[in-house]
Protein backbone atom coordinates (compact mmCIF):
# COMPACT_ATOMS: atom_id res chain seq x y z
CA UNK A 1 0.00 0.00 0.00
CA UNK A 2 1.47 3.36 -0.92
CA UNK A 3 1.59 6.38 1.38
CA UNK A 4 -0.95 8.34 -0.61
CA UNK A 5 -3.54 5.67 -0.14
CA UNK A 6 -2.97 5.57 3.62
CA UNK A 7 -3.38 9.34 3.79
CA UNK A 8 -6.65 9.19 1.94
CA UNK A 9 -8.00 6.50 4.24
CA UNK A 10 -6.94 8.47 7.26
CA UNK A 11 -8.53 11.71 6.14
CA UNK A 12 -11.47 11.56 8.62
CA UNK A 13 -9.08 10.69 11.43
CA UNK A 14 -6.86 13.64 10.61
CA UNK A 15 -9.86 15.98 10.40
CA UNK A 16 -10.99 14.99 13.89
CA UNK A 17 -7.40 15.20 15.13
CA UNK A 18 -7.19 18.75 13.76
CA UNK A 19 -10.41 19.71 15.54
CA UNK A 20 -8.86 18.24 18.68
CA UNK A 21 -5.71 20.34 18.28
CA UNK A 22 -7.77 23.51 17.84
CA UNK A 23 -9.80 22.63 20.93
CA UNK A 24 -6.62 21.96 22.89
CA UNK A 25 -5.29 25.47 22.26
CA UNK A 26 -8.59 27.33 22.51
CA UNK A 27 -10.15 25.62 25.53
CA UNK A 28 -7.82 27.02 28.26
CA UNK A 29 -8.64 30.57 27.14
CA UNK A 30 -12.39 30.02 27.00
CA UNK A 31 -13.11 27.65 29.86
CA UNK A 32 -12.62 28.01 33.60
CA UNK A 33 -9.83 26.15 35.36
CA UNK A 34 -12.35 23.94 37.16
CA UNK A 35 -13.81 22.82 33.84
CA UNK A 36 -10.33 22.22 32.46
CA UNK A 37 -9.41 19.99 35.39
CA UNK A 38 -12.66 18.05 34.96
CA UNK A 39 -11.97 17.78 31.26
CA UNK A 40 -8.57 16.26 31.96
CA UNK A 41 -10.28 13.37 33.74
CA UNK A 42 -12.74 12.98 30.87
CA UNK A 43 -9.85 12.93 28.40
CA UNK A 44 -8.12 10.19 30.38
CA UNK A 45 -11.32 8.16 30.22
CA UNK A 46 -11.60 8.87 26.50
CA UNK A 47 -8.18 7.27 26.00
CA UNK A 48 -9.54 4.23 27.83
CA UNK A 49 -12.60 4.19 25.57
CA UNK A 50 -10.33 4.50 22.54
CA UNK A 51 -8.32 1.48 23.63
CA UNK A 52 -11.47 -0.59 23.97
CA UNK A 53 -12.78 0.73 20.64
CA UNK A 54 -9.60 -0.59 19.05
CA UNK A 55 -9.57 -4.02 20.64
CA UNK A 56 -13.32 -4.63 20.49
CA UNK A 57 -14.43 -2.60 17.51
CA UNK A 58 -11.56 -3.59 15.23
CA UNK A 59 -10.06 -6.66 16.87
CA UNK A 60 -13.43 -8.18 17.66
CA UNK A 61 -12.11 -9.14 21.09
CA UNK A 62 -14.73 -8.80 23.75
CA UNK A 63 -12.66 -7.39 26.60
CA UNK A 64 -14.79 -6.55 29.61
CA UNK A 65 -11.75 -5.82 31.69
CA UNK A 66 -10.15 -2.93 29.88
CA UNK A 67 -10.23 -1.01 33.17
CA UNK A 68 -7.86 -3.63 34.57
CA UNK A 69 -5.12 -2.37 32.23
CA UNK A 70 -6.15 1.22 32.86
CA UNK A 71 -5.94 0.75 36.62
CA UNK A 72 -2.80 -1.32 36.38
CA UNK A 73 -1.18 1.48 34.38
CA UNK A 74 -2.26 4.05 36.95
CA UNK A 75 -0.95 1.97 39.84
CA UNK A 76 2.30 1.15 38.06
CA UNK A 77 2.85 4.82 37.25
CA UNK A 78 2.14 5.94 40.80
CA UNK A 79 4.33 3.31 42.43
CA UNK A 80 7.15 3.82 39.95
CA UNK A 81 6.99 7.61 40.21
CA UNK A 82 7.17 7.45 44.00
CA UNK A 83 10.16 5.13 43.84
CA UNK A 84 12.01 6.90 41.01
CA UNK A 85 11.18 10.40 42.24
CA UNK A 86 10.16 11.48 38.75
CA UNK A 87 7.52 10.68 36.20
CA UNK A 88 9.54 10.23 33.01
CA UNK A 89 10.41 6.56 33.37
CA UNK A 90 7.29 5.90 35.40
CA UNK A 91 5.12 6.49 32.33
CA UNK A 92 7.14 3.95 30.40
CA UNK A 93 6.93 1.49 33.29
CA UNK A 94 3.13 1.92 33.37
CA UNK A 95 2.78 1.11 29.68
CA UNK A 96 5.17 -1.82 29.94
CA UNK A 97 3.49 -3.33 32.99
CA UNK A 98 0.01 -3.16 31.48
CA UNK A 99 1.15 -4.49 28.11
CA UNK A 100 3.16 -7.28 29.69
CA UNK A 101 0.21 -8.32 31.83
CA UNK A 102 -2.06 -8.23 28.79
CA UNK A 103 0.40 -10.31 26.80
CA UNK A 104 0.56 -12.90 29.57
CA UNK A 105 -3.20 -13.07 30.02
CA UNK A 106 -3.68 -12.98 26.26
CA UNK A 107 -1.30 -15.89 25.81
CA UNK A 108 -3.48 -18.07 27.99
CA UNK A 109 -6.83 -17.06 26.53
CA UNK A 110 -5.95 -16.73 22.84
CA UNK A 111 -3.67 -19.72 22.63
CA UNK A 112 -6.17 -21.73 24.61
CA UNK A 113 -8.66 -20.63 21.93
CA UNK A 114 -11.15 -19.51 24.52
CA UNK A 115 -14.33 -18.30 22.79
CA UNK A 116 -15.22 -14.61 22.76
CA UNK A 117 -17.96 -14.75 25.36
CA UNK A 118 -15.74 -16.62 27.78
CA UNK A 119 -13.04 -14.07 27.12
CA UNK A 120 -15.34 -11.28 28.22
CA UNK A 121 -16.17 -13.09 31.42
CA UNK A 122 -12.55 -13.97 32.15
CA UNK A 123 -11.30 -10.42 31.66
CA UNK A 124 -14.11 -9.16 33.87
CA UNK A 125 -13.18 -11.69 36.53
CA UNK A 126 -9.55 -10.62 36.40
CA UNK A 127 -10.66 -7.03 36.96
CA UNK A 128 -12.81 -7.91 39.94
CA UNK A 129 -10.03 -9.98 41.48
CA UNK A 130 -7.71 -6.97 41.16
CA UNK A 131 -10.37 -4.95 42.94
CA UNK A 132 -10.61 -7.26 45.92
CA UNK A 133 -6.87 -7.91 45.96
CA UNK A 134 -5.78 -4.27 46.09
CA UNK A 135 -8.58 -3.32 48.47
CA UNK A 136 -7.09 -5.62 51.06
CA UNK A 137 -3.60 -4.13 50.91
CA UNK A 138 -4.20 -1.54 53.60
CA UNK A 139 -1.60 -2.61 56.14
CA UNK A 140 1.89 -1.09 56.39
CA UNK A 141 3.37 -4.44 55.30
CA UNK A 142 1.98 -3.99 51.78
CA UNK A 143 4.45 -1.77 50.03
CA UNK A 144 6.43 -1.80 46.84
CA UNK A 145 9.70 0.04 47.37
CA UNK A 146 8.74 3.28 49.09
CA UNK A 147 5.12 3.21 47.95
CA UNK A 148 2.51 2.08 50.45
CA UNK A 149 -0.38 0.40 48.66
CA UNK A 150 -2.93 2.08 50.92
CA UNK A 151 -5.70 -0.47 50.42
CA UNK A 152 -9.12 1.07 50.12
CA UNK A 153 -7.82 4.64 50.28
CA UNK A 154 -5.40 4.20 47.41
CA UNK A 155 -2.20 6.13 46.81
CA UNK A 156 -1.63 9.79 46.09
CA UNK A 157 -0.11 10.04 42.65
CA UNK A 158 2.95 12.24 42.16
CA UNK A 159 2.28 14.86 39.46
CA UNK A 160 3.89 14.70 36.05
CA UNK A 161 7.11 16.61 35.58
CA UNK A 162 9.01 17.80 32.55
CA UNK A 163 11.05 14.99 31.01
CA UNK A 164 14.19 14.30 33.06
CA UNK A 165 13.65 17.43 35.15
CA UNK A 166 12.19 16.22 38.43
CA UNK A 167 12.03 19.69 39.96
CA UNK A 168 9.54 21.26 37.53
CA UNK A 169 6.12 19.78 38.11
CA UNK A 170 3.27 20.41 35.76
CA UNK A 171 0.26 22.34 37.01
CA UNK A 172 -3.28 21.13 36.29
CA UNK A 173 -3.64 23.49 33.33
CA UNK A 174 -0.49 22.02 31.82
CA UNK A 175 -1.64 18.49 32.47
CA UNK A 176 -4.64 19.34 30.31
CA UNK A 177 -2.32 20.00 27.35
CA UNK A 178 -0.46 16.77 27.98
CA UNK A 179 -3.70 14.79 28.23
CA UNK A 180 -5.19 16.31 25.12
CA UNK A 181 -1.98 15.78 23.17
CA UNK A 182 -1.84 12.17 24.36
CA UNK A 183 -5.44 11.59 23.32
CA UNK A 184 -4.84 13.04 19.86
CA UNK A 185 -1.65 11.05 19.39
CA UNK A 186 -3.29 7.81 20.54
CA UNK A 187 -6.25 8.51 18.27
CA UNK A 188 -4.08 9.12 15.22
CA UNK A 189 -1.99 6.07 16.12
CA UNK A 190 -5.09 3.86 16.31
CA UNK A 191 -6.45 5.41 13.12
CA UNK A 192 -3.17 4.60 11.41
CA UNK A 193 -2.91 1.12 12.91
CA UNK A 194 -6.23 0.01 11.46
CA UNK A 195 -5.13 1.01 7.95
CA UNK A 196 -1.93 -1.03 8.14
CA UNK A 197 -1.62 -4.63 7.01
CA UNK A 198 -1.74 -5.69 10.66
CA UNK A 199 -4.94 -3.76 11.28
CA UNK A 200 -6.61 -5.13 8.18
CA UNK A 201 -5.80 -8.68 9.16
CA UNK A 202 -7.27 -8.00 12.59
CA UNK A 203 -10.48 -6.75 11.00
CA UNK A 204 -10.48 -9.80 8.75
CA UNK A 205 -10.21 -12.06 11.78
CA UNK A 206 -13.06 -10.18 13.42
CA UNK A 207 -15.23 -10.78 10.37
CA UNK A 208 -14.37 -14.42 9.84
CA UNK A 209 -11.69 -16.05 11.92
CA UNK A 210 -11.78 -19.37 10.10
CA UNK A 211 -11.35 -17.75 6.69
CA UNK A 212 -8.44 -15.65 7.93
CA UNK A 213 -6.77 -18.78 9.27
CA UNK A 214 -7.31 -20.63 6.01
CA UNK A 215 -5.57 -17.76 4.26
CA UNK A 216 -2.57 -18.48 6.42
CA UNK A 217 -2.81 -15.87 9.15
CA UNK A 218 -2.25 -17.07 12.70
CA UNK A 219 -5.25 -15.40 14.31
CA UNK A 220 -3.94 -16.08 17.81
CA UNK A 221 -0.86 -13.95 17.23
CA UNK A 222 -2.80 -11.08 15.69
CA UNK A 223 -5.32 -11.09 18.51
CA UNK A 224 -2.54 -11.17 21.06
CA UNK A 225 -0.88 -8.26 19.27
CA UNK A 226 -3.88 -5.96 19.18
CA UNK A 227 -4.82 -6.93 22.74
CA UNK A 228 -1.36 -5.98 23.99
CA UNK A 229 -1.29 -2.69 22.08
CA UNK A 230 -4.69 -1.68 23.36
CA UNK A 231 -3.64 -2.50 26.93
CA UNK A 232 -0.70 -0.14 26.50
CA UNK A 233 -3.04 2.62 25.32
CA UNK A 234 -5.36 1.95 28.26
CA UNK A 235 -2.34 2.35 30.54
CA UNK A 236 -1.63 5.79 29.04
CA UNK A 237 -5.22 6.65 29.94
CA UNK A 238 -4.56 5.40 33.45
CA UNK A 239 -1.48 7.59 33.83
CA UNK A 240 -3.49 10.64 32.73
CA UNK A 241 -6.35 9.66 35.00
CA UNK A 242 -4.33 9.46 38.18
CA UNK A 243 -2.76 12.79 37.28
CA UNK A 244 -6.11 14.38 36.66
CA UNK A 245 -7.64 13.08 39.88
CA UNK A 246 -4.46 13.24 41.97
CA UNK A 247 -4.77 9.76 43.43
CA UNK A 248 -5.55 6.21 42.45
CA UNK A 249 -7.88 3.94 44.42
CA UNK A 250 -8.97 0.33 43.90
CA UNK A 251 -12.40 1.64 42.90
CA UNK A 252 -11.04 2.03 39.40
CA UNK A 253 -11.31 -1.77 39.11
CA UNK A 254 -14.91 -2.03 40.22
CA UNK A 255 -17.83 -3.39 38.27
CA UNK A 256 -19.33 0.03 37.70
CA UNK A 257 -16.26 1.34 35.90
CA UNK A 258 -15.91 -1.83 33.87
CA UNK A 259 -19.52 -1.42 32.74
CA UNK A 260 -19.02 2.25 32.00
CA UNK A 261 -16.19 1.48 29.56
CA UNK A 262 -18.37 -1.00 27.71
CA UNK A 263 -21.23 1.50 27.60
CA UNK A 264 -19.05 4.20 26.01
CA UNK A 265 -18.12 1.86 23.19
CA UNK A 266 -21.65 0.48 22.75
CA UNK A 267 -23.16 3.96 22.67
CA UNK A 268 -20.43 5.39 20.46
CA UNK A 269 -20.48 2.42 18.16
CA UNK A 270 -18.22 -0.54 17.51
CA UNK A 271 -16.03 -0.20 14.46
CA UNK A 272 -15.40 3.50 14.88
CA UNK A 273 -12.80 5.30 16.96
CA UNK A 274 -14.29 8.76 17.25
CA UNK A 275 -17.72 7.46 18.33
CA UNK A 276 -16.59 6.00 21.66
CA UNK A 277 -14.46 9.08 22.37
CA UNK A 278 -17.44 11.37 21.80
CA UNK A 279 -19.68 9.06 23.84
CA UNK A 280 -17.19 9.21 26.72
CA UNK A 281 -17.37 12.99 26.89
CA UNK A 282 -21.15 12.96 26.56
CA UNK A 283 -21.71 10.33 29.23
CA UNK A 284 -19.05 11.85 31.49
CA UNK A 285 -21.06 15.05 31.66
CA UNK A 286 -24.31 13.14 31.98
CA UNK A 287 -23.03 11.14 34.98
CA UNK A 288 -21.52 14.28 36.55
CA UNK A 289 -24.88 16.00 36.21
CA UNK A 290 -26.62 12.94 37.65
CA UNK A 291 -24.21 12.97 40.59
CA UNK A 292 -25.58 16.37 41.55
CA UNK A 293 -29.11 15.12 42.15
CA UNK A 294 -30.47 12.24 44.15
CA UNK A 295 -33.70 11.23 42.42
CA UNK A 296 -32.19 9.01 39.78
CA UNK A 297 -29.42 6.62 40.67
CA UNK A 298 -26.38 6.53 38.36
CA UNK A 299 -26.46 2.75 38.06
CA UNK A 300 -30.12 2.85 37.14
CA UNK A 301 -29.61 5.35 34.33
CA UNK A 302 -26.58 3.54 32.92
CA UNK A 303 -28.40 0.21 33.06
CA UNK A 304 -31.31 1.66 31.12
CA UNK A 305 -28.94 3.22 28.56
CA UNK A 306 -27.11 -0.08 28.08
CA UNK A 307 -30.29 -2.12 27.65
CA UNK A 308 -31.76 0.48 25.34
CA UNK A 309 -28.75 0.47 23.06
CA UNK A 310 -28.34 -3.31 22.99
CA UNK A 311 -31.98 -3.84 22.10
CA UNK A 312 -32.71 -0.89 19.83
CA UNK A 313 -29.46 0.70 18.58
CA UNK A 314 -27.09 -2.27 18.63
CA UNK A 315 -24.64 -0.62 16.25
CA UNK A 316 -24.18 2.51 18.36
CA UNK A 317 -24.65 6.16 17.51
CA UNK A 318 -21.77 6.85 15.11
CA UNK A 319 -22.34 3.93 12.67
CA UNK A 320 -26.11 4.47 12.77
CA UNK A 321 -25.65 8.12 11.86
CA UNK A 322 -23.17 7.24 9.10
CA UNK A 323 -25.56 4.64 7.69
CA UNK A 324 -28.38 7.13 7.74
CA UNK A 325 -26.36 9.74 5.88
CA UNK A 326 -25.07 7.36 3.23
CA UNK A 327 -28.60 6.04 2.71
CA UNK A 328 -29.82 9.58 2.13
CA UNK A 329 -26.92 10.49 -0.11
CA UNK A 330 -26.84 7.37 -2.23
CA UNK A 331 -30.03 7.91 -4.26
CA UNK A 332 -29.06 11.49 -4.94
CA UNK A 333 -25.61 10.53 -6.11
CA UNK A 334 -27.08 7.79 -8.28
CA UNK A 335 -29.51 10.28 -9.78
CA UNK A 336 -26.71 12.68 -10.53
CA UNK A 337 -24.71 9.94 -12.20
CA UNK A 338 -27.69 8.92 -14.29
CA UNK A 339 -28.30 12.49 -15.35
CA UNK A 340 -24.65 12.94 -16.21
CA UNK A 341 -24.62 9.83 -18.38
CA UNK A 342 -27.71 11.06 -20.20
CA UNK A 343 -26.00 14.40 -20.83
CA UNK A 344 -22.96 12.57 -22.19
CA UNK A 345 -25.10 10.53 -24.53
CA UNK A 346 -26.77 13.64 -25.78
Amino acid at each position, binding site marked *: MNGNNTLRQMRPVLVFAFIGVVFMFVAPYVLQLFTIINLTTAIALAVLALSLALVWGYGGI*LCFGQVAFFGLGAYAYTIAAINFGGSTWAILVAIMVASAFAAL*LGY*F*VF*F*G*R*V*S*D*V*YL*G*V*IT*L*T*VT*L*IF*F*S*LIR*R*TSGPEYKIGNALMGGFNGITSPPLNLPWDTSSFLFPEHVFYVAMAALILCYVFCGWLVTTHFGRVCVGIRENELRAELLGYDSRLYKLGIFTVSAGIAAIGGVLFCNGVGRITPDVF*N*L*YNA*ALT*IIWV*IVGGRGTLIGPIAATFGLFYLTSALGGQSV*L*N*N*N*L*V*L*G*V*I*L*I*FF*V*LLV*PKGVAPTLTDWFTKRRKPRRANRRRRRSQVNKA
Partner: protein
Amino acid sequence: MDLVVAVLFQLVYGIANLALISLGLAIIFGMMRVINLAHGEFLMLGGYTVVVATNAGVNIWIAMLILAPLVVGIIGVIVERLLIRWLYGRMVDTLLATWGLSLLLIGLVTSIFGASTATTISPPLGIIRLGDYSASGYELFLIGVTIVLFIAVFATLKMTKLGLVARGTMQNPEMSSALGVSTTQVYMVTFGLGAAVTGLAGGLLAPVTGVLPTIGATYIAKAFITVISGGASILAGTAAGSILLGGINGIFAFITGPTIGEVALLVAAIILLRLMPRGITGRFFRKSL
Protein backbone atom coordinates in the same frame (compact mmCIF):
# COMPACT_ATOMS: atom_id res chain seq x y z
CA MET B 1 -6.58 -34.52 64.56
CA ASP B 2 -9.15 -31.93 65.61
CA LEU B 3 -7.31 -29.37 63.52
CA VAL B 4 -7.45 -31.62 60.48
CA VAL B 5 -11.19 -32.04 60.91
CA ALA B 6 -11.70 -28.30 61.35
CA VAL B 7 -9.63 -27.47 58.26
CA LEU B 8 -11.38 -30.15 56.23
CA PHE B 9 -14.71 -28.75 57.34
CA GLN B 10 -13.72 -25.29 56.14
CA LEU B 11 -12.53 -26.75 52.86
CA VAL B 12 -15.79 -28.58 52.29
CA TYR B 13 -17.74 -25.48 53.26
CA GLY B 14 -15.76 -23.40 50.76
CA ILE B 15 -16.51 -25.91 48.02
CA ALA B 16 -20.21 -26.05 48.93
CA ASN B 17 -20.38 -22.27 49.02
CA LEU B 18 -18.89 -22.05 45.55
CA ALA B 19 -21.27 -24.70 44.23
CA LEU B 20 -24.25 -22.97 45.83
CA ILE B 21 -23.56 -19.56 44.29
CA SER B 22 -22.74 -21.09 40.88
CA LEU B 23 -25.58 -23.57 40.42
CA GLY B 24 -28.24 -21.11 39.23
CA LEU B 25 -25.80 -19.60 36.75
CA ALA B 26 -24.83 -23.07 35.54
CA ILE B 27 -28.47 -24.07 34.97
CA ILE B 28 -29.15 -20.99 32.85
CA PHE B 29 -25.85 -21.26 31.00
CA GLY B 30 -25.88 -25.03 30.54
CA MET B 31 -29.48 -25.25 29.38
CA MET B 32 -29.86 -22.06 27.40
CA ARG B 33 -26.32 -20.93 26.52
CA VAL B 34 -27.11 -17.61 28.15
CA ILE B 35 -24.46 -16.12 30.42
CA ASN B 36 -26.42 -14.14 32.93
CA LEU B 37 -24.28 -11.23 34.07
CA ALA B 38 -27.07 -10.16 36.42
CA HIS B 39 -26.47 -13.37 38.37
CA GLY B 40 -24.89 -11.49 41.27
CA GLU B 41 -27.91 -9.22 41.44
CA PHE B 42 -30.27 -12.20 41.53
CA LEU B 43 -28.31 -13.41 44.56
CA MET B 44 -28.57 -9.92 46.02
CA LEU B 45 -32.34 -9.85 45.47
CA GLY B 46 -32.64 -13.20 47.24
CA GLY B 47 -30.79 -11.71 50.19
CA TYR B 48 -32.99 -8.62 50.26
CA THR B 49 -36.12 -10.77 50.10
CA VAL B 50 -35.02 -12.59 53.25
CA VAL B 51 -34.10 -9.39 55.08
CA VAL B 52 -37.32 -7.61 54.19
CA ALA B 53 -39.46 -10.64 54.98
CA THR B 54 -37.87 -11.33 58.38
CA ASN B 55 -38.16 -7.65 59.29
CA ALA B 56 -41.84 -7.91 58.44
CA GLY B 57 -42.14 -10.77 60.94
CA VAL B 58 -41.96 -13.80 58.66
CA ASN B 59 -40.19 -16.84 60.06
CA ILE B 60 -36.60 -16.83 58.80
CA TRP B 61 -36.75 -20.41 57.50
CA ILE B 62 -39.84 -19.69 55.44
CA ALA B 63 -38.23 -16.50 54.16
CA MET B 64 -35.02 -18.28 53.14
CA LEU B 65 -36.32 -21.55 51.78
CA ILE B 66 -39.62 -20.49 50.21
CA LEU B 67 -39.92 -16.75 49.72
CA ALA B 68 -36.44 -16.04 48.35
CA PRO B 69 -36.59 -18.59 45.50
CA LEU B 70 -40.20 -17.72 44.77
CA VAL B 71 -39.63 -13.97 44.49
CA VAL B 72 -36.42 -14.22 42.47
CA GLY B 73 -37.94 -16.95 40.28
CA ILE B 74 -40.83 -14.66 39.40
CA ILE B 75 -38.39 -11.83 38.70
CA GLY B 76 -36.45 -14.25 36.48
CA VAL B 77 -39.56 -15.10 34.46
CA ILE B 78 -40.35 -11.41 34.02
CA VAL B 79 -36.79 -10.71 32.92
CA GLU B 80 -36.91 -13.57 30.43
CA ARG B 81 -40.16 -12.29 28.93
CA LEU B 82 -39.09 -8.67 28.72
CA LEU B 83 -35.41 -8.91 27.88
CA ILE B 84 -33.78 -12.27 27.24
CA ARG B 85 -36.23 -13.70 24.72
CA TRP B 86 -35.38 -11.07 22.12
CA LEU B 87 -31.75 -12.07 22.22
CA TYR B 88 -31.60 -15.87 21.93
CA GLY B 89 -28.72 -17.00 19.78
CA ARG B 90 -26.92 -13.68 20.19
CA MET B 91 -24.62 -14.52 23.07
CA VAL B 92 -22.69 -11.27 23.15
CA ASP B 93 -25.84 -9.15 23.12
CA THR B 94 -27.37 -11.26 25.88
CA LEU B 95 -24.24 -10.74 27.90
CA LEU B 96 -24.46 -6.97 27.44
CA ALA B 97 -28.19 -6.78 28.05
CA THR B 98 -27.90 -8.74 31.29
CA TRP B 99 -25.06 -6.46 32.33
CA GLY B 100 -27.42 -3.54 31.77
CA LEU B 101 -29.97 -5.40 33.85
CA SER B 102 -27.39 -5.86 36.58
CA LEU B 103 -26.74 -2.10 36.74
CA LEU B 104 -30.46 -1.44 36.62
CA LEU B 105 -31.15 -3.75 39.55
CA ILE B 106 -28.29 -2.28 41.61
CA GLY B 107 -29.67 1.19 40.93
CA LEU B 108 -33.23 0.18 41.72
CA VAL B 109 -32.34 -1.50 45.01
CA THR B 110 -30.11 1.42 45.99
CA SER B 111 -32.96 3.83 45.32
CA ILE B 112 -35.38 1.79 47.41
CA PHE B 113 -33.27 0.54 50.32
CA GLY B 114 -30.32 2.94 50.35
CA ALA B 115 -26.68 2.24 49.58
CA SER B 116 -25.69 0.90 52.99
CA THR B 117 -26.28 -2.47 54.59
CA ALA B 118 -29.90 -3.20 55.36
CA THR B 119 -30.62 -4.59 58.84
CA THR B 120 -28.56 -7.70 59.22
CA ILE B 121 -29.92 -10.99 60.43
CA SER B 122 -27.83 -13.42 62.41
CA PRO B 123 -27.36 -17.03 61.32
CA PRO B 124 -30.10 -19.03 62.99
CA LEU B 125 -28.13 -22.08 64.14
CA GLY B 126 -25.60 -22.22 66.96
CA ILE B 127 -22.08 -23.53 66.90
CA ILE B 128 -20.99 -27.15 66.90
CA ARG B 129 -17.94 -28.53 68.62
CA LEU B 130 -15.19 -30.30 66.70
CA GLY B 131 -12.99 -31.40 69.59
CA ASP B 132 -10.98 -28.31 70.53
CA TYR B 133 -12.39 -26.32 67.66
CA SER B 134 -15.83 -25.07 66.90
CA ALA B 135 -17.66 -24.57 63.65
CA SER B 136 -20.83 -22.79 62.73
CA GLY B 137 -23.89 -25.01 62.64
CA TYR B 138 -25.28 -22.86 59.91
CA GLU B 139 -22.30 -23.64 57.70
CA LEU B 140 -22.98 -27.34 58.19
CA PHE B 141 -26.58 -26.66 57.25
CA LEU B 142 -25.47 -24.88 54.06
CA ILE B 143 -23.33 -27.86 53.06
CA GLY B 144 -26.38 -30.08 53.52
CA VAL B 145 -28.62 -27.76 51.53
CA THR B 146 -26.14 -27.66 48.65
CA ILE B 147 -26.08 -31.44 48.44
CA VAL B 148 -29.88 -31.64 48.60
CA LEU B 149 -30.17 -28.94 45.95
CA PHE B 150 -27.88 -30.84 43.58
CA ILE B 151 -29.92 -34.00 44.09
CA ALA B 152 -33.14 -32.08 43.51
CA VAL B 153 -31.90 -30.52 40.28
CA PHE B 154 -30.66 -33.91 39.10
CA ALA B 155 -34.01 -35.51 39.88
CA THR B 156 -35.93 -32.73 38.16
CA LEU B 157 -33.89 -32.98 35.00
CA LYS B 158 -33.67 -36.77 34.85
CA MET B 159 -36.91 -38.03 36.29
CA THR B 160 -39.67 -35.56 35.59
CA LYS B 161 -41.48 -34.85 32.35
CA LEU B 162 -40.53 -31.20 32.65
CA GLY B 163 -36.85 -32.14 32.82
CA LEU B 164 -37.13 -34.42 29.81
CA VAL B 165 -38.94 -31.79 27.75
CA ALA B 166 -36.47 -29.13 28.81
CA ARG B 167 -33.45 -31.24 27.89
CA GLY B 168 -35.01 -32.16 24.58
CA THR B 169 -35.75 -28.53 23.78
CA MET B 170 -32.20 -27.50 24.54
CA GLN B 171 -30.81 -30.21 22.26
CA ASN B 172 -33.10 -29.58 19.33
CA PRO B 173 -35.67 -26.79 19.59
CA GLU B 174 -37.15 -27.35 16.10
CA MET B 175 -37.81 -31.02 16.72
CA SER B 176 -39.33 -30.28 20.11
CA SER B 177 -41.71 -27.70 18.74
CA ALA B 178 -42.62 -30.08 15.90
CA LEU B 179 -43.58 -32.58 18.59
CA GLY B 180 -45.91 -30.07 20.16
CA VAL B 181 -43.69 -28.56 22.85
CA SER B 182 -44.05 -24.84 23.38
CA THR B 183 -40.39 -23.94 23.35
CA THR B 184 -40.92 -20.38 24.51
CA GLN B 185 -42.60 -21.70 27.63
CA VAL B 186 -39.76 -24.13 28.24
CA TYR B 187 -37.22 -21.34 27.97
CA MET B 188 -39.26 -19.21 30.33
CA VAL B 189 -39.60 -21.93 32.93
CA THR B 190 -35.92 -22.92 32.68
CA PHE B 191 -34.77 -19.34 33.17
CA GLY B 192 -37.22 -18.95 36.03
CA LEU B 193 -35.91 -22.13 37.70
CA GLY B 194 -32.32 -20.97 37.33
CA ALA B 195 -33.26 -17.65 38.86
CA ALA B 196 -35.13 -19.39 41.68
CA VAL B 197 -32.10 -21.53 42.55
CA THR B 198 -30.00 -18.36 42.53
CA GLY B 199 -32.51 -16.60 44.75
CA LEU B 200 -32.42 -19.50 47.19
CA ALA B 201 -28.63 -19.31 47.31
CA GLY B 202 -28.75 -15.56 47.86
CA GLY B 203 -31.33 -15.95 50.61
CA LEU B 204 -29.32 -18.65 52.36
CA LEU B 205 -26.15 -16.59 52.25
CA ALA B 206 -27.79 -13.39 53.49
CA PRO B 207 -27.30 -14.20 57.19
CA VAL B 208 -23.62 -15.01 56.57
CA THR B 209 -22.62 -12.06 54.41
CA GLY B 210 -25.23 -9.39 55.07
CA VAL B 211 -26.85 -7.60 52.15
CA LEU B 212 -25.75 -4.60 50.10
CA PRO B 213 -26.94 -3.41 46.71
CA THR B 214 -23.47 -4.05 45.31
CA ILE B 215 -22.87 -7.39 47.00
CA GLY B 216 -23.39 -9.23 43.72
CA ALA B 217 -19.94 -8.17 42.55
CA THR B 218 -18.30 -10.18 45.33
CA TYR B 219 -20.01 -13.36 44.14
CA ILE B 220 -19.97 -13.19 40.38
CA ALA B 221 -16.23 -13.39 39.79
CA LYS B 222 -16.10 -16.72 41.61
CA ALA B 223 -19.38 -17.99 40.17
CA PHE B 224 -18.40 -17.26 36.56
CA ILE B 225 -14.98 -18.75 36.84
CA THR B 226 -16.45 -21.88 38.41
CA VAL B 227 -19.06 -22.35 35.71
CA ILE B 228 -16.64 -21.67 32.86
CA SER B 229 -14.04 -24.02 34.32
CA GLY B 230 -16.71 -26.63 34.85
CA GLY B 231 -17.87 -26.54 31.26
CA ALA B 232 -21.22 -27.24 29.69
CA SER B 233 -22.57 -29.98 31.97
CA ILE B 234 -24.71 -28.38 34.63
CA LEU B 235 -24.25 -30.60 37.66
CA ALA B 236 -21.05 -32.45 36.91
CA GLY B 237 -19.44 -29.25 35.65
CA THR B 238 -20.40 -27.16 38.64
CA ALA B 239 -19.40 -29.91 41.04
CA ALA B 240 -16.05 -30.48 39.33
CA GLY B 241 -15.34 -26.75 39.05
CA SER B 242 -16.30 -26.12 42.66
CA ILE B 243 -14.26 -29.00 44.02
CA LEU B 244 -11.15 -28.07 42.05
CA LEU B 245 -11.28 -24.30 42.48
CA GLY B 246 -12.81 -24.35 45.95
CA GLY B 247 -10.14 -26.83 46.98
CA ILE B 248 -7.33 -24.68 45.61
CA ASN B 249 -8.85 -21.55 47.13
CA GLY B 250 -9.23 -23.25 50.50
CA ILE B 251 -5.72 -24.64 50.59
CA PHE B 252 -4.10 -21.36 49.60
CA ALA B 253 -6.34 -19.36 51.91
CA PHE B 254 -5.34 -21.67 54.77
CA ILE B 255 -1.63 -21.21 54.06
CA THR B 256 -1.49 -17.51 53.19
CA GLY B 257 -4.81 -15.77 53.79
CA PRO B 258 -8.00 -15.10 51.84
CA THR B 259 -6.55 -12.63 49.32
CA ILE B 260 -4.00 -15.03 47.89
CA GLY B 261 -6.65 -17.72 47.95
CA GLU B 262 -8.79 -15.80 45.46
CA VAL B 263 -5.83 -15.04 43.24
CA ALA B 264 -4.83 -18.69 43.28
CA LEU B 265 -8.37 -19.62 42.29
CA LEU B 266 -8.23 -17.28 39.31
CA VAL B 267 -4.76 -18.33 38.19
CA ALA B 268 -5.73 -21.99 38.43
CA ALA B 269 -8.84 -21.35 36.36
CA ILE B 270 -6.93 -19.51 33.63
CA ILE B 271 -4.28 -22.22 33.40
CA LEU B 272 -7.07 -24.80 33.34
CA LEU B 273 -8.71 -23.03 30.42
CA ARG B 274 -5.42 -22.98 28.53
CA LEU B 275 -5.34 -26.75 28.84
CA MET B 276 -9.08 -27.40 28.49
CA PRO B 277 -10.74 -24.47 26.73
CA ARG B 278 -14.16 -26.05 27.00
CA GLY B 279 -13.93 -26.66 30.70
CA ILE B 280 -13.49 -29.82 32.70
CA THR B 281 -16.65 -31.45 31.35
CA GLY B 282 -15.63 -30.53 27.81
CA ARG B 283 -12.84 -33.10 28.26
CA PHE B 284 -14.00 -35.50 30.98
CA PHE B 285 -17.48 -36.82 31.87
CA ARG B 286 -18.84 -35.49 28.60
CA LYS B 287 -22.07 -37.44 28.73
CA SER B 288 -22.89 -36.32 32.22
CA LEU B 289 -25.65 -33.96 33.14
